[in-house]
């Protein structure tokens, strides 16, 4: 379907335009989704002409890090998402212009200064814009009524801080609470207005919300629940206070509205073919919109939520990166890479000393959903479980759990009967669990025991249950993913025959590499395989034993390949393929290890500042405690002394000023 004939773009004649250019891949917007897609597309298609059109006058930045920028922990240069000059190094052309309309029939766009751009594939990554106060609110345009969304907004905030003693923050979400903590850090009296009765009512239950609000109150913020702003009072055009729906006036010099964002969809209205949109431009799992050759990714794209079936945008950093990579794979015709499941949503943040994590839908209730809660160790954890599978996890406490590992457990549908208690108590050691799991898998497959593994071990062979909602989607995507597999089963058999007898010879690895390229590119390949085998019993059951042994052969062939030493390496290249079963870390030469790590007494500060280290077995790498040299240590102590001076709390992410 990607092989559409290239349309001729006769715009020069048609409209008398002075200039016309074209690109194979045209990307609108250089947020993280736009630039990630461009870089990924460059990797997948080295010869295509890739152009980014943007209105933003600065390079792509880490927008979540703007919170640190707001409290002066970071400088502007430290916000860059990719090293300076990446665009040029990757041969990505960046054009500064405003895109006015999309001519989808003839496949070109027109900028507001009458510049035409033909495209082969178009990606819309225009992001989102803050909502601000509702239209019609009196005084919403006064000086001092701001939103925080872009770099300029934060620069503006930092400029205003000196003249602010009281601030009002409006909104009941994560952005609002992070803004509150940032303002508290500067010693500003903060009044926080929440429309609902609880904080983040869709993600947190009442207990969790109360813990968070109590934490904020303890830090000096005044929280007003069930409160809305009906108007802003000003003096000579500048804010003097806000009036709430309880007919109360709160004096302030700054009003920050953190009431959410809307996707920027003006381009959808200026497209010659109808682009379907609801709350965002509707896309399928390969990020294709309703118009051929137009894709959307990032905050502007509305994907189907597997749980509710509704299309909604996921305005999160990680979602934007993941979507951009898939969009790049779709645009370059790498359908195998594009068939990647996004899995459940997750969000993690630190609120002062409190860390908060939500994965999936912990608040889901229903007849077959079991909910477990725990309040030990000063934290709060809530799990939603269907048939031994986790569907949602919520944790509040002093230590942040391994968020991505828990997401992986949910996405792959691991049985959690052995780890329920650890998860609930917040003492779950994800690294250990996943590592052991992979070891069991590898052992079972090497001994050919996989289909008849003893029950009770955390391995993949499960009775097929009535699949709950999250599993159905993953089953669907796996079905798609498993389709390309038979096509490459021939080379893998060859590969097994070639590689097994002489795994250490680099010469022999050459043809193997070539064959491996036909399979797919990492790193999704490993995940796809494990997914087919472990996470999805339905697939292997339905397709019978031959299918399974074929897959096992592939697993076995993978193992002798991994230790082959390769000279140049990167996580991206095919050489760097990592088998989750072997880990594929090469054995380090002994003298190198010793020269890198020198066993000297433990550095005290490090041990103290990492209270969770013992629990996570961070020192278990070497068995011995390795630290830098003595003279270096003193130098470090000086450095850290300086740091303490600059950031009074030293406990990072705690914005609150102490003493």
């Amino acid at each position, binding site marked *: 379907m990607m092989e559409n004939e290239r349309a001729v773009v006769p715009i020069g004649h048609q409209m008398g335009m002075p200039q016309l250019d074209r690109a194979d891949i045209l990307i609108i917007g250089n947020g993280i989704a736009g630039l990630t897609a461009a870089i990924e597309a460059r990797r997948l298609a080295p010869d295509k002409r890739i152009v980014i059109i943007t209105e933003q006058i600065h390079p792509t930045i*880490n927008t*979540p*890090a703007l919170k640190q920028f707001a409290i002066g*922990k*970071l400088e502007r240069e*430290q*916000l860059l*998402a990719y090293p300076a000059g990446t665009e040029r190094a990757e041969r990505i052309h960046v054009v500064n212009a405003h895109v006015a309309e999309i001519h989808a029939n003839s496949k070109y766009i027109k900028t507001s200064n009458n510049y035409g751009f033909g495209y082969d594939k178009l990606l819309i990554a225009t992001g989102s814009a803050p909502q601000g106060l509702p239209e019609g609110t009196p005084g919403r345009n006064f000086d001092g009524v701001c939103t925080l969304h872009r770099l300029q907004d934060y620069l503006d905030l930092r400029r205003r801080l000196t003249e602010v003693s009281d601030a009002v923050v409006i909104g009941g979400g994560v952005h609002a609470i992070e803004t509150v903590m940032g303002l508290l850090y500067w010693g500003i009296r903060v009044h926080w207005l929440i429309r609902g009765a609880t904080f983040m009512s869709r993600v947190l239950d009442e207990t969790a919300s109360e813990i968070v609000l109590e934490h904020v109150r303890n830090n000096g913020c005044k929280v007003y629940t069930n409160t809305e702003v009906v108007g802003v009072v000003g003096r000579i055009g500048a804010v003097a206070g806000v009036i709430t729906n309880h007919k109360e006036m709160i004096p302030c010099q700054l009003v920050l509205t953190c009431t959410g964002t809307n996707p920027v969809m003006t381009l959808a209205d200026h497209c010659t073919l109808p682009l379907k949109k609801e709350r965002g431009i509707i896309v399928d799992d390969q990020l294709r919109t309703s118009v051929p050759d137009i894709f959307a990714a990032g905050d502007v794209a509305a994907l189907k939520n597997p749980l509710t079936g509704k299309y909604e945008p996921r305005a999160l*950093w990680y979602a934007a*990166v*993941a979507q951009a*990579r898939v969009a790049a794979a779709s645009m370059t015709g790498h359908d195998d890479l594009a068939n990647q499941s996004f899995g459940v949503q997750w969000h*993690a943040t630190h609120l002062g000393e409190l*860390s908060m994590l939500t994965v999936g839908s912990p608040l889901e209730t229903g007849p077959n959903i079991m909910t477990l809660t725990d309040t030990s160790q000063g934290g709060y954890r809530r799990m939603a479980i269907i048939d031994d599978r986790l569907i949602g996890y919520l944790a509040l406490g002093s*230590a*942040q759990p391994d*968020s*991505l*590992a828990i997401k992986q457990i949910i996405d792959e549908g691991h049985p959690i009967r052995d780890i329920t208690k650890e998860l609930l108590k917040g003492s779950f050691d994800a*690294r*250990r669990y*996943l590592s*052991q799991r992979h070891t069991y898998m590898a052992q079972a497959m090497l001994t050919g025991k996989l289909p008849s593994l003893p029950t009770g071990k955390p391995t993949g062979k499960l009775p097929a249950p009535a699949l709950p909602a999250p599993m159905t989607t993953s089953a669907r995507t796996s079905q798609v993913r498993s389709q390309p597999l038979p096509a490459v089963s021939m080379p893998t058999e060859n590969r097994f025959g070639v590689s097994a007898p002489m795994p250490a010879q680099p010469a022999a690895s050459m043809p193997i590499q070539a064959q491996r390229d036909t399979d797919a590119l*990492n*790193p*999704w390949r*490993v995940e796809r395989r494990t997914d087919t085998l472990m996470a999805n019993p339905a697939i292997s059951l339905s397709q019978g034993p031959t299918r399974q042994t074929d897959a096992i052969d592939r697993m076995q062939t993978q193992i002798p390949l991994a230790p082959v*030493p390769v*000279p140049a390496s*990167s*996580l*991206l290249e095919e050489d760097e*393929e990592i088998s*989750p079963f072997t*880990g*594929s*870390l*090469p054995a380090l*030469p002994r003298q*190198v290890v010793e020269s890198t790590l020198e066993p000297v007494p433990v*550095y005290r*500060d*490090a*041990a103290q*500042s*990492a209270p*969770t*280290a013992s629990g996570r077995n*961070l*020192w*278990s*790498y070497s068995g011995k405690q390795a630290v*830098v040299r003595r003279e*270096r240590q003193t*130098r*470090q102590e000086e450095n*850290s002394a300086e740091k303490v001076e600059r*950031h009074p709390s030293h406990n*990072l*992410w705690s914005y609150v000023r102490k003493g």
Partner: protein
Amino acid sequence: MPNPVLLHKTGPQVMQELQACIGCNECLLACPALAEPITIDRLNHETLSGPISGPVARFARACYQCGACVPPCPVGLHRDAMMMWLKVRLLRSGGE
């Protein structure tokens, strides 16, 4: 039974963590081994692919995996595992 393979996360996991990094620099601010200014974009970039520059290589050698970078991470990522990968890349590229 002592467990010898808790060294690191697998490549796909490290890759995923690098993508999830929001670039807040908290791990670097907490690091006791960081001696010269390195920005998170460069560190992430070079952990992933491409040549490893001098400052990053020196930092990778100075890192002694104390784990001080892990608790401050607001999104719960493991910079220590990423650093381990950087070290492996450094060794493989003959940087020693």
